């Protein structure tokens, strides 16, 4: 019942905040985001699952109820958590609470609607990570779009309407292509599965029970079907991640979105894509993933390098952070395609680490923007002397991004590189890894450059606004994030142990090698 309590407390909170006068909405929303946070932390502490939820592991907080009948297939209400989904649920609740705090300063219009939508988004995100039935998962997956569309469209920057509709249509097309691909797999399995439950489908696919889609005479043969479905799903999720060349919606959405929405977009929404890649493509169709390992790794490496180069070319601080997400997500894909425990585990760890670090950077840029009303690197200089605390945090976050040891980003990238290096599935793995590592150099380049220009040197700013220290409710969330990032960097086993436990079965598929 814990997951139901989590989702319901978010939805109930959203409903309450919707009907609260704007004046009280910010504080009430913060208060109402605490119960889900506490519940998710309790879920973390009391976690008793083991193994992978899709591959016969012990599912924690499982609920199962019959729901619909789609022709021969039962559609059930089935939720539960394992070592992969639990960290992402906690990430969602933590970032939601912190982003609500970070919204107190910038959001000064239609507050009750804003905070209501944020809580609605939180509930949908938790549902995405907890659902274990495909159709139920798809309900939450699509539900995420609505609050995010409105958050960008109502409270965004000057080009918000364009950015919002682009995000909306672009990611929805991807979802639908993925939907058709996945249902082709379900029907291809024929009588081997009797429901749209993800565990049953995963086991049947891994057991090689895929048959013809349709009849053998006119149908699609299993091999073609598996590859086609893999590609449809990969494209569908790759848009969400996003990887090059499907990334064009991201800078628009990020730059126009208000800071708290950017935090959730980069921190959690992008992880939906990588989470789904792991859960569907890489767990259910390992053979096809191995067949396509080289092109996928190439896409990953291109995303890493190209995303970083794009970030290097930006003048807008927020765009720098946005493009660097494309680069960071490339590491996740590289880790996944390596098919080693450290590769897949590191990818999952990177999802959490990047969620925290990118959230931190977006929030810090937001704090600067609240004070200076500009995000152009060329317009500001020497902010550190006026806003020392914020500047310190920004530096910490930037070093986290660059992979400073003892911070979460370092551990994540280390795991991914170790995993990718020793991969037996990916041909020429060391070459791909080496190129990917070069991405870090570029990251260091653009972040150091951006910091040097905006934070240090003599104070200079073309603005009429008075600059002062940021209020406590702006500083508190970013400091909290720094603490969490350092904690995960010092003691990665806080979550890596359960991640590792849950990814073990994924990579054990005949060819899965490495420790």
């Amino acid at each position: 019942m814990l997951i139901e309590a989590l989702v319901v407390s978010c939805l109930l909170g959203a409903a309450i905040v919707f009907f609260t006068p704007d004046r009280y909405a910010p504080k009430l929303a913060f208060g109402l985001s605490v119960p889900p946070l506490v519940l998710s932390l309790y879920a973390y502490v009391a976690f008793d699952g083991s193994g992978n939820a899709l591959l016969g592991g012990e599912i924690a907080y499982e609920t199962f109820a019959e729901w619909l009948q789609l022709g021969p297939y039962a559609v059930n209400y089935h939720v539960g958590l394992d070592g992969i989904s639990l960290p992402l649920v906690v990430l969602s609740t933590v970032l939601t609470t912190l982003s609500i705090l970070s919204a107190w300063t910038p959001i000064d219009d239609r507050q009750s609607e804003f905070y209501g939508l944020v809580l609605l988004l939180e509930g949908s995100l938790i549902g995405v990570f907890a659902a274990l039935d495909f159709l139920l998962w798809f309900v939450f997956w699509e539900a995420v779009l609505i609050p995010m569309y409105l958050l960008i469209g109502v409270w965004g920057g000057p080009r918000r309407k364009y950015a919002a509709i682009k995000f909306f249509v672009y990611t929805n097309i991807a979802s639908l292509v993925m939907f058709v691909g996945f249902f082709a797999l379900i029907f291809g399995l024929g009588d081997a599965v009797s429901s749209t439950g993800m565990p049953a489908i995963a086991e049947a696919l891994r057991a090689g029970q895929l048959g013809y889609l349709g009849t053998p005479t006119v149908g699609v043969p299993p091999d073609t079907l598996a590859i086609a479905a893999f590609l449809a799903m990969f494209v569908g999720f790759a848009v969400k991640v996003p990887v090059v060349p499907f990334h064009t919606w991201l800078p628009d959405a990020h730059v126009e979105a208000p800071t708290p929405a950017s935090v959730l977009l980069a921190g959690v929404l992008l992880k939906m894509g990588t989470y789904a890649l792991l859960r569907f493509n890489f767990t259910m169709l390992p053979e096809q993933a191995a067949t396509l390992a080289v092109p996928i790794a190439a896409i990953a490496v291109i995303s890493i390098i190209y995303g970083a180069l794009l970030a290097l070319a930006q003048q807008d601080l927020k765009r720098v952070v946005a493009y660097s997400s494309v680069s960071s997500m490339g590491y996740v894909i590289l880790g996944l395609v390596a098919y080693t425990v450290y590769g897949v585990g590191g990818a999952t760890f990177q999802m959490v680490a990047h969620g925290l670090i990118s959230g931190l950077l977006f929030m810090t840029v937001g704090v600067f923007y609240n004070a200076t009303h500009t995000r152009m690197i060329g317009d500001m200089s020497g902010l550190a002397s006026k806003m020392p605390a914020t500047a310190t945090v920004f530096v910490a976050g930037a070093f986290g991004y660059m992979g400073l040891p003892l911070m979460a980003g370092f551990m994540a990238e280390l795991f991914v590189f170790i995993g990718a290096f020793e991969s037996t599935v990916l041909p020429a793995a060391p070459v791909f890894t080496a190129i990917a590592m070069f991405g870090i150099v570029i990251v260091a380049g653009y972040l150091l450059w951006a910091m040097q220009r905006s934070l240090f040197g003599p104070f200079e700013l073309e603005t009429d606004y008075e600059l002062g220290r940021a209020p406590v409710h702006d500083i508190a969330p970013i400091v909290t994030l720094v603490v969490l990032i350092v904690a995960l960097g010092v003691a990665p086993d806080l979550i890596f142990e359960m991640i590792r436990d849950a990814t073990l079965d994924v990579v054990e598929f005949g060819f899965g090698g490495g420790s």
Partner: protein
Amino acid sequence: MVTMANEWLLLSPAAAFVLAALALFVIDAFAPEDADGGLLAAVAAVGGIAALSASGVLLLSGVAADGVELFGGQLVVDGMSLLFTFIFGSVTALVSVASVDYIRELPHKAEYYLLVTLAATGMSLLASANSLAVVFVALELSSLPSYALVAYLKRNRGSVEGALKYFLVGALSSGIMVYGISLVYAATGSLLLSDVASALGGASADYPGVLGVGLLMIVGGLAFKTASVPFHFWAPDAYEGAPAPVAAFLSSASKAAGFVVAFRVLVVGFPIGTIAGTLDWVLLFQVLAVVTMTLGNFAAATQENVKRMLAYSSIGHAGYALIGLAALTNAGGPGAEATVLGASMLHLFVYGFMNTGAFLFVALVEHWELGRTFEDYNGLGREAPVACVAMTVFVFSLAGLPVGGGFLSKYFLFAGAVGAGVPWLALVGAVNSALSLYYYSRVVKAMWIEPPAEPLGIERYPTALYAAVLTAAVVTVLLLPGLVVFDGIAFEAAASLF
């Protein structure tokens, strides 16, 4: 053997509509000056509710699960006919309630409700029609009142123009259809669908030309009723010109009636296995489905008028529902065919609520005299938040986002098409559906994101219209988890046709 009493019991949903119509006759004869029309609307709404309750009870009791033939097989009452009568009852009730406010100031109220209930009677007979003669008579019974309803605002040029267009296309297509029926009769020697089916083998050998042309003409008549390409021209003008509640009635109930008769005539009367050599109607419907959904969606995307956008979106949804027929390629086995046909029924079922609701919201805005373009809707969310939340539910559900039952039914349809061995059709539908998000979200954008050009000045919040819109919204939302009540019925009803 079905006894006389049981026969009437099985026809009670249709009888409810007839009784409501007769009651309206009587009331109009004895009290023609019923000023506010509340009583008239109540009678029509009660008729609709009685029809939906009766069909609901019959569905759940399972007495007609195997299909009961009446009047020597002219009518059949089965799961599909009851499910669709349930839709007609719901839409009739919603539209009648909403019309109280909409036509409060207009003359000829009794005639208005009378025509609605008579059209609903025709639709419920269409759902049960088991012979081509009954199909034609019921089609006319549902169409003729519809023409008059569209022209109800007879001093309004748009209303009259739309009605005339509707009538001319309708007269032409029913002429084509009745000629097609005569050709089929000539080739097979029967009008009963089951007899047509059994005579099909011999007829396609002896008179392939006559039979093929006849069937093609019948399909033309069905395309008119479902507002599918190539007989869709009338729909945008008729829906735009008609009073908004009438547009809701036509685009939801009348369309569903066209589909139910198409399902029965084609699946029962012309099984694709026997007729494929003469006229491959599955291939025909594949083309029609793709063209209809694509044309509807692209035309909807270019509209500036919300009502006209909904009219084209309604054509797009006809395209989705046609997948139910277009996927019967026999590539996925009979189970898969029943699944996709059942999914199509479910989609029409949910569509009955969400589309009716959307048109009734347009009726609400017309009642406020705010205008019909997207710009006129700007900032409406602040003035009428409850109604706008309902409209958001309708359009997002139409677009296939998980705020209502439209999400599940649409994806059931696409999944069913994949299972029936036509994944490309599902893909075309899916891409269309994703693109439709563009124009549906324009309504949401106008209501919630754009600021109003000038103060809207809404003073009255009409109770009956609000009640109808909110009921439709609540049902649409509840159909997301609650589709479980109807999904089994729809899939079984579809399976029993084969």
